[in-house]
């Protein structure tokens, strides 16, 4: 399970980083979303991966660490709000600047 988890994390992070470095706002936002997924999974794994164990003391012999789950919940909420904000901001910038390049100007087009 650990190997599968690690590979997933690696793929998500590298895709996210690649997209983050693109020049269009939409791909950058996709990259940020993938990166935040990877980060959430990483935080979740920081309490160690255990299967079939509740996050409550005293029910079963083994128990999962509840704290990373709480942290992930917080991180998900914050990440969701931030993504919503950056989507709206990118739309606003695309309308105002008439293009969706992250620098607000398209180097391929002739500047008039």
């Amino acid at each position, binding site marked *: 399970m650990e190997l599968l988890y690690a590979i997933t994390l690696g793929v998500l992070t590298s895709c996210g980083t690649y997209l983050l470095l693109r020049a269009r706002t939409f791909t950058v936002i996709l990259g940020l979303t993938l990166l935040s997924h990877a980060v959430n999974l990483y935080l979740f794994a920081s309490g160690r991966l255990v299967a079939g164990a509740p996050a409550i003391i005293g029910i079963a012999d083994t128990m999962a660490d509840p704290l990373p789950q709480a942290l992930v919940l917080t991180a998900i909420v914050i*990440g969701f709000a931030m993504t919503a904000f950056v989507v709206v901001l990118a739309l606003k910038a695309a309308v105002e600047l008439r293009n969706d390049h992250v620098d*607000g100007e398209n180097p391929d087009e002739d500047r008039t």
Partner: protein
Amino acid sequence: MNHVLILPILLPLLTGAGQLLFYRAPFAVQRLLGFASTAWLVLLGLWAIVTAGAGDYLIYQAGNWPAPFGIVLVLDRLAAIMLALTAVLGLCCLLYASGGTDRRGAHFHALFQFQLAGLNGAFLTGDLFNLFVFFEILLIASYALLLHGGGRARSRAGLHYVIINLAGSALFLIALGTLYGLVGTLNMADLAQRIAAAPAEDAPLLAAASLILLVVFGIKAAILPLLFWLPRAYSAASAPVAALFAIMTKVGVYAILRVFLLVFALGEAPVNETAWNWLWPLALLTLALGGIGVLGSESLRTLTAYLVILSVGTLLATISLATPAALGAALFYLVHSTLMAAAFFLLADLLGQQRKEGYDRFSAVGPIGHRWVLGSLFFIAGIAMAGLPPFSGFVSKVWILQASGAQPGGLWLWGILLASALLVIIAISRTGSSWFWRPGEMATPYPLRRGLLTLVYSMVGLNALLAAFGDPVMAYLALTAEQLFAPQGYISAVLPEATAPTWEVAP
């Protein structure tokens, strides 16, 4: 337990929520609420300075949960200074914004209060994950404040600012996950103990986590490879917002101090040495780049943004010397540079309003209204900014030079600091002569806002007061630095039952 300690967070949070709920109320009510809250914050800041001045740590356990399990707020001298500075700066910015800037967009006052709540929370919290949450609160408020007033330049700068900070947040969480996975706690005091006792094979991972945190705080503080978002963002923001942002880079500096002098400072081979070794050359380069940027700026606001970068470079270079004397000097410089950068952003707006064309751009050469009043203000503020006597910039710089002279590599700091100070003087005097000296008097000047002028004057006056009362201020800051270099006190205050072994404190 003293419940006053949570008020600096709760008061602006509730005020901001109230302003959002009653946004249809007359605008004067919104302003009044904002003023009331911020004035109370100033009083709370003074209370914090007096309380923390006694040398004890004030602990607030949220929900009465004991320390490593619940979230604690900790008030020490450094937190008290930052609280007071934020409150005073916030009040000045709010007063200036009430000159009319706050009407140019929706919800300015609510966002302003949320920003203050996030700042105060970041300064008070004793938990690393909670620090992340307060960072996000202050960031999301700052995103919206940066866009306040609208316009193409703000959208463009805002996009860069938001994206780099979102990437920074992701990195912050990666560092937190690594730390939690290794030592199983996120309370700063508990972290410090457990990292010191961590087995040797964990050391590379801990160092990696500490360096990721350095990158995150470096984005906030604008250290060299991570600072290119700053000039555009700060020069695009409206004047009171840019002035408030003067404290935002200092949040990064605060976090670096807190984390690297507490969390990674203990143990036989402390983790923070790696960070200091990186920070020293990067900070010097930041300082040099700030000086060059000041000289090459195209407008007064960009110039001020590079002055912010220059101040961050000075601060971090001094801090990475890692001696109590240097740290005290750096803290004095922190207070001075925050106040003066804010005053300069406001001054740029005041001057820009009086010019017929070009606003604050240097390329435009035209007469300026009220040449003598504004010219003398610019002259005095320029002297204060450049760090010439009799202002506190001079006192703090002399202190920095004194503290660093005996250190290895201190001569580098001397050279670069003095050279960039010279560049600042050249840039400011060039601006002054081309704006006030060369062109003649304007025939029909625009009306001058006496209130706003007095506000900027009093901010510069406050700076002079800091120098006039330099002795008690310096004594307080020296004690602050000593307290920061004795993290055992912090740990035993937060975790009273822990039998803390007395580790040697790393230089």
